[in-house]
């Protein structure tokens, strides 16, 4: 088990290292619950794909791999700006923190915009299960199941990302007033952990959706 307890009075102290470590432990446990939450979706994907691998190959070719790749690049870059925002926060360079936070929020919004375009394309192609599914090629059933899982997984991911964008924007606004900066940096760190987790989920989603079968 961990070392003897930190010699900190049991009251809730204001000093930074203890509070920071506690908040990030709490955040990591929350990310563990989110990981199990997404884990179920990945199991559903694995079960469906193993049931009809060929069907998932056909379906994956119908997705827009280029849009998916640009989106992955956008989200990876937003992770960079978020991480730098947290770093500069601890390094005390406050002005750059605000700029980096806005950059992160903008990149997140860009990701959602690209996702919106993708959804619109899929709506036009008639690949939206139940609502507008006019696909008549081979493996029709596997394609419909693929797109059900596609919309379920990317939808849940997009919801998480939108919450992230909103929080980052709120933090960027709140950071303008310089009072109790320590609190801000801790929030930034926790928000950073959440942002990187949402990015990590997308990193796993990307190959499973877009890269199943790209060869000619």
């Amino acid at each position, binding site marked *: 088990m961990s070392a003897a307890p930190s010699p900190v009075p049991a009251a809730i102290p204001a000093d930074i290292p203890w509070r920071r470590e506690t908040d990030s432990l709490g955040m990591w446990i929350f990310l563990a619950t989110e990981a199990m939450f997404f884990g179920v979706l990945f199991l559903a994907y694995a079960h469906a794909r193993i049931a009809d691998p060929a069907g998932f190959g056909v379906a994956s070719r119908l997705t827009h791999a280029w849009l998916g790749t640009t989106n992955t690049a956008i989200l990876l870059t937003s992770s960079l700006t978020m991480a730098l925002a947290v770093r500069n926060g601890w390094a005390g360079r406050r002005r750059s923190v605000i700029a980096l936070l806005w950059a992160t929020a903008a990149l997140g919004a860009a990701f959602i915009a690209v996702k919106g375009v993708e959804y619109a394309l899929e709506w036009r192609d008639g690949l939206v299960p139940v609502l507008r599914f006019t696909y*008549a090629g*081979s*493996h*029709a059933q596997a394609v419909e199941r693929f797109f059900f899982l596609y919309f379920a997984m990317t939808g849940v991911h997009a919801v998480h990302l939108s919450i992230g964008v909103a929080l980052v924007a709120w933090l960027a606004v709140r950071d303008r007033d310089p009072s109790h900066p320590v609190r801000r940096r801790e929030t930034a760190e926790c928000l950073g952990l959440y942002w990187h987790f949402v990015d990590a989920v997308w990193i796993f989603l990307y190959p499973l959706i877009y890269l199943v079968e790209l060869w000619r």
Partner: protein
Amino acid sequence: MNERAGWVLPAASEAAQRVDRIFFVLLAVTSVVAIAIAVVIVVFCIRYRRSARADRSNAPAGKPWLEYTWTAAPMAIFLGFFAWGAVVYAGFYGHADGAMPIFVVGKQWMWRVEHPDGRREIDELHVPLGQKVRLVFATEDVIHSFYVPAFRMKQDAVPGRYTEVTLTPTRLGTYEMHCTEYCGTDHARMGGRVIVMRPEDFARWLAEGGRRSSMAARGFAAFRRLGCSGCHDPRSTVHAPDLTGLYGRTVHLQDGRTVVADDAYIRDSILLPKRDVVAGFDPVMPSFQGQASEEDILDLIAYLKSTGGREP
């Protein structure tokens, strides 16, 4: 139909006797240990109650050797029961080697039983004494579970696939049968009887079912009734695969795969025609999901088998 004498459940199948042996050995072992613990607790409670004068010096806070033994001992006993249970459990499945299949189809709140020669029953199952029988389960809607307490046998019927159990009745008589997987309003009324008969009586019962067509004959009737012959009959104008002698043949599909036309392929082609489209044909066949019942599919398979072809 009260075959229970007081609180004793008859053991009417080979498996039942083997399960009862495990059950009563478990009962003996667990009762002995439970009583031993109870006695020890009561003795300690009396001997060491506050008002009693007893030697309470250097009370132990732990005896590693004792604790390791009462960790290892239960583990050993448990592994023994696990192995025994697993061996008997494995005997329920497979090893059919030529046993007579009987099809049991669950449908919301009744059981339809069908013998290979075509005799049908509802909520009743006649089985011959002493002969190995393979019960094959299918369901038309939700999950049902076929449970015969006297046989100590229970098996879920899962939609979308066949499940099966092998058993050998060893005692004449009539026994209760229940559905034990919750399936809706009349789940409690979805039961019936299992009647074990002497082999000769069973054969006579099977035969006297009156002039009725075999499954294959009924399959041919379904082949016409459902409109399959409209396309698949060699003389029809529609460009559709010819099914005569299909059974056991390897079929080349549009996306390059080749499959053996066994029962699962026929079943899927009826219910999900667009999944395995035959090479050279376009996917125009509608799905018969909801029109062709489980019996119809079993009969159609029997009919296609009767048009020639060989075991896959």
